């Protein structure tokens, strides 16, 4: 059992209430819209965020990304945890 608000490989992330992804044709970019804030996720972050469906565990998301990017799963998992921790602290993602 980890401390409140601390994510690990077993966490099940979802976008926080009031947060969504959309494509912006004006900037030709994907954006994440949240209360009073707009983020422009990079390609990897976008792939992670699309899989934050409130069902998949971080380790499952990482395994899928490791397959599609032909990368080492433990490294990917550590990166995904780090990214989602940052987004959770910012209120964009909840577990």
């Amino acid at each position: 059992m980890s401390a409140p608000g601390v994510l690990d490989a077993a966490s099940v992330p979802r976008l926080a209430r009031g947060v969504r992804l959309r494509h912006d044709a004006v900037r030709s970019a994907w954006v994440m819209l949240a209360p009073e804030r707009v983020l422009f996720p990079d390609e990897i972050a976008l792939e992670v965020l699309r899989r934050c469906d409130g069902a998949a565990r971080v380790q499952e998301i990482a395994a899928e990304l490791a397959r599609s990017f032909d990368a080492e799963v433990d490294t990917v998992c550590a990166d995904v945890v780090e990214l989602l921790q940052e987004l959770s602290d910012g209120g964009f993602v909840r577990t």
Partner: protein
Amino acid sequence: MSPVLGAALPDPPLALLLELTHRCPLRCGYCSNPLELEAAGRELDTRTWCRVLDEAAALGVLQVHFSGGEPSTRRDLEQLVAHAHALDLYTNLITSGVLLERARLEALVQAGLEHVQLSVQDSDPASADRIAGYAGHARKLAFARWLGELGVAFTLNAVVHRQNLERLDAVIELAVELGAQRLEVAHVQYYGWARPNLGALLPTAEQLDAATASVEAARARLRGRLRIDYVIPDLHAELPKACMDGWGRRFLGVTPSGSVLPCQAAQTLPGLHFENVRERGLAEIWNESAAFQRFRGTAWMPEPCRSCERREIDWGGCRCQALALLGDAAATDPVCAKSPEHAVVQRLAESASRGGGSPYLYRGARGAERA
């Protein structure tokens, strides 16, 4: 570079604030509306607001804040939210929550409302009603519970100052208890209506330090549950705030009668003409109008801003503050410790926070007034 014009256009704005009306039953003495309130008869009609939304979406705006005054005094609010939602704009309602019935809130959610920012004046009901000049605190709490029941994302917005700061921990607990996703603890910014209340509202440096410590402790305690945004009163600061994240960079606002502003308080600045959506398209105003060009970027900056390594971080601070304190909107924000006039701010903060005896003045139809 645009191949047609041969000159770069500014980046498109991210957010649009619509002040649908200046009408509001509350009389908070730090209201962000201008001192010269616009009468209901001058407000734009539904069709014009819808055109503004169309033009905003085409320009690249991603988020729309429906504000006021109290925006729910407009009967067409549901229609405007639905219009924005159909354009895939992120819709946020900034409200006092005291006029909206549950059925109307449900209609707004049905129309595509994505987020609500609800104001509270205090955690203590009697104090909250006194600060607002209106007995509305209990209705706000009921409104917040409906938001929870309907699953609407919401932020609790608490404006804090000397008269409620000692209850900041209780305000934070209220946000948790009501189930807000986010809490904004915003110290009063002393422009417009708040200016004559400086002596009644500005906290001492010690009160400010205690508040900052409360926020930091709550952030740690509520990690992963409640996001807390915190805005300090910049009269006690050493670095200026990046006002509007830079003039004409990310934000534009439209007043009830259609004037387009780079910041909500910009109408206090002399010598600037703000163009109106009744006469010109939003994109042209954003890209070309003299008012938006005036303080955009870094070319307008005086020293010490111009050669400062933070010039593209704080964008020279706040123009309204430079005007209010130095009489010159184009000066370096005197909040900055590098400003040659920084002592003006220090003297003001010291004397105001020593004061304490000044009466609290309300927003009134004919100017600031006593209870």
